[in-house]
């Protein structure tokens, strides 16, 4: 920077500039005609040559034109017993709590996961509430009615056939292992064992987060344990209040755990092995369900099995 020039008068220089300087200035402005044209809002000169670089694909290069980040998907399967024994308070409570639950878990996927819901009911007939899993933001609960026998084995077969990349789990992107939540108040009327063995061969089921809720005193916890593969993820509701609370706890906890990657290393100080992390989510689900159950008092004393 030249220091030869002495300080000149301060203030707005344009006021005090010599005539010729002002002219030179305007000439300069003319040389920046594009800028000037810009200032006047005139149409800019037409391009002399076409852009020769494919890089400038200006239909689609706005740095602000992002779409949502690519998400993982999680399907939550609800397997719900709609046999005759569910009629009345049980199915009433269940319908109400499910209606309330859906909006509550809408945000659970945050920016990482699209959470979808699929509901399979089993009475005499095995039926899906909707023909495919529905995004939780758009899901509307349609109230269930109870009737018929408990064809649970048939439900296991139907679930297994749909838990496939060619069917319900067809997201092109990554998926988390599904959450499978079984609710029943009785013992299967059909031969469920063979069907359950078949289901256990399904990889999605193997990695999935499984939980079960027995409703009333007829439900068989051992059978439910066979389904989830662990005692911790089976709970039992004996009253309407318990039923509502437990459905919420299990659904919310499993959706939270299922829809997120897991911090595997919170409690360790060594290099983790694959063996150590296997089924970490299922274990965590069991722990959290059990913790929540201890905090759950039996405030509602009227048993689900009385007063029908």
């Amino acid at each position, binding site marked *: 920077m030249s220091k030869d020039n002495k300080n000149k008068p301060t203030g707005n220089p344009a006021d005090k500039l010599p005539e010729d*300087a002002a002219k030179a200035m305007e000439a300069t402005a003319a040389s920046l005609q594009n*800028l000037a044209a*810009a200032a006047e809002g005139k149409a800019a000169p037409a391009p002399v040559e076409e852009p020769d670089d494919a890089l400038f694909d200006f239909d689609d290069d706005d740095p602000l034109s992002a779409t949502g*980040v690519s998400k993982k998907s999680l399907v939550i399967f609800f397997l719900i017993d709609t046999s005759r024994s569910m009629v009345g308070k049980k199915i009433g409570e269940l319908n109400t709590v499910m209606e309330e639950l859906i909006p509550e878990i809408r945000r659970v996927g945050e*920016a990482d996961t699209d959470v979808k819901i699929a509901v399979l009911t089993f009475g005499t007939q095995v039926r899906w509430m909707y023909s495919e899993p529905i995004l939780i*933001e758009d899901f509307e609960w349609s109230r269930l009615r109870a009737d018929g026998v408990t064809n649970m084995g048939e439900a296991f077969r139907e679930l297994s056939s749909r838990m496939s990349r060619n069917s319900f789990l067809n997201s092109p992107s*990554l998926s988390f292992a599904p959450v499978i939540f079984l609710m029943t108040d009785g013992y299967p009327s059909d031969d469920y064992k063979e069907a359950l063995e078949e289901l256990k061969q399904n990889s999605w089921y193997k990695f999935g987060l499984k939980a079960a809720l027995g409703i009333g005193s007829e439900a068989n916890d051992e059978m439910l344990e066979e389904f989830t593969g662990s005692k911790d993820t089976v709970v039992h509701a004996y009253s309407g209040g318990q039923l509502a609370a437990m459905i919420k706890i299990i659904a919310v906890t499993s959706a939270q755990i299922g829809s997120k990657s897991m911090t595997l290393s919170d409690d360790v100080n060594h290099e983790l092995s694959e063996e150590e992390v296997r089924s970490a989510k299922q274990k965590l689900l069991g722990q959290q369900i059990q913790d929540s159950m201890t905090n759950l008092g039996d405030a509602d004393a009227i048993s689900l099995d009385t007063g029908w």
Partner: protein
Amino acid sequence: MVELSIGQEVEMEYGGKAQVLGVIGSGGQGIVYLVRYNGMKWALKWYDIDKMKNPKAFRKNIQNNISDGPPSNKFLWPKYLTKEKEDGTFGYLMELKPESFDSFVDILNTYKLSVDPLTGRSTKTPVRFTSLYAMVTAVINIVNAFRQLHRAGKSYQDLNDGGFFINMDTGAVLVCDCDNIAPDGSNFGIGGKPGYMAPEVVRGVAKPNVQTDKYSLAVVLFKLLFRGDPMEGEKVVKDVCLTESSELKHYGQNAVFIYDPDDASNRPVRGIHDNVIKFWRIYPDYVKDAFIRSFTLGISDPNKRIIENEWQKIFIRLRSEIIQCTCGRTNFTSMFKMVDFKTYKCPQCGTIFETLKFSNRKNRMPLYVGSVFYDCEIDPDSEDFQTVAGMLVENKLKPGVLGFKNMSDKTWRAKMPDGDFYEIPPGKGFPIWQGLIIDFGEVTASL
């Protein structure tokens, strides 16, 4: 955990009671409530102490943070602790997030949901930056917040998409969830959010610290600019189902950057990672190189990670390379045609852009009506990247004549077409011409 009920009062450490008005949200460590305390509304974070390894130490750490105060006004810092209940549960009060800020989660989703409390139906409102300036300013603000925090000797530990709020019009940033912030080297039990955690934390061989913060910061910046996951490409998608072991592999033991120049095994997949594919070609090489270094060398060697000051310089430069063309095209100079070393041309309409060369940096700043430079760009001692120092404007009395307006509080000197230098006090302007030299003091600029 024992949840609070609406109307319940919680005793504060130094007297008074906070009354619960509603629930704001819940997270892994507890629930955040809206409360009233001393006539003002606050957010109360109430902990699930069953999930804490050492609640006493955790509480003590928050106490220390409260007395140290926030590193700057970019933090929604803990303000007051509650009294400990008999069972040991406690919480703390912080200021509420202003309405004008959106969560980083909603920004990544590009919309926010509002749920009608009566019907349970949800509606979506778009969440987008209103200008490229705002987006790059937000990036600079995030980097700067972590620079301030690390300079205070603390680490954030749990850096993830739940930790920020951004004003989409201005790029202002608020860092929230400051309760896990701890002196570098200490850890009170938080591991972090997978996808954001440094590979050594995922693997279990390190606890969060300043160096792992730097990795997480690079992930946050990458997600904000490229709108995708830096480690999720073909190799990961092939697994179809993301189990615990595949996460350990792809984010810990064998993490491969999607644009690793030496390992093409994990490239983004068209149809799934379209954002990243699109944006990766838009950004200039010096930005991409910084991410490549962070996610290749920086994976195994924490000392190779980009330091905050370096990120800050990179993004201050990027902001100065934005061109807003009259035809509507707004982009970085990397997406304009370079005619010669000092001229760019709009590939859409052909408009020519002259550039300004500053003596303290190599890159040149494109000129158009409305282009600006900031205090930190003309004063080596200034850290102020928010205050506009100069702007290119059109002379109000002479349409078509363009010049710079001095918006700083210092007097500059500018060379006029008569060959002499004139003093340009704050608020005054001067025309641009081919021989222009601006003397800012230590820094000069010329056309």
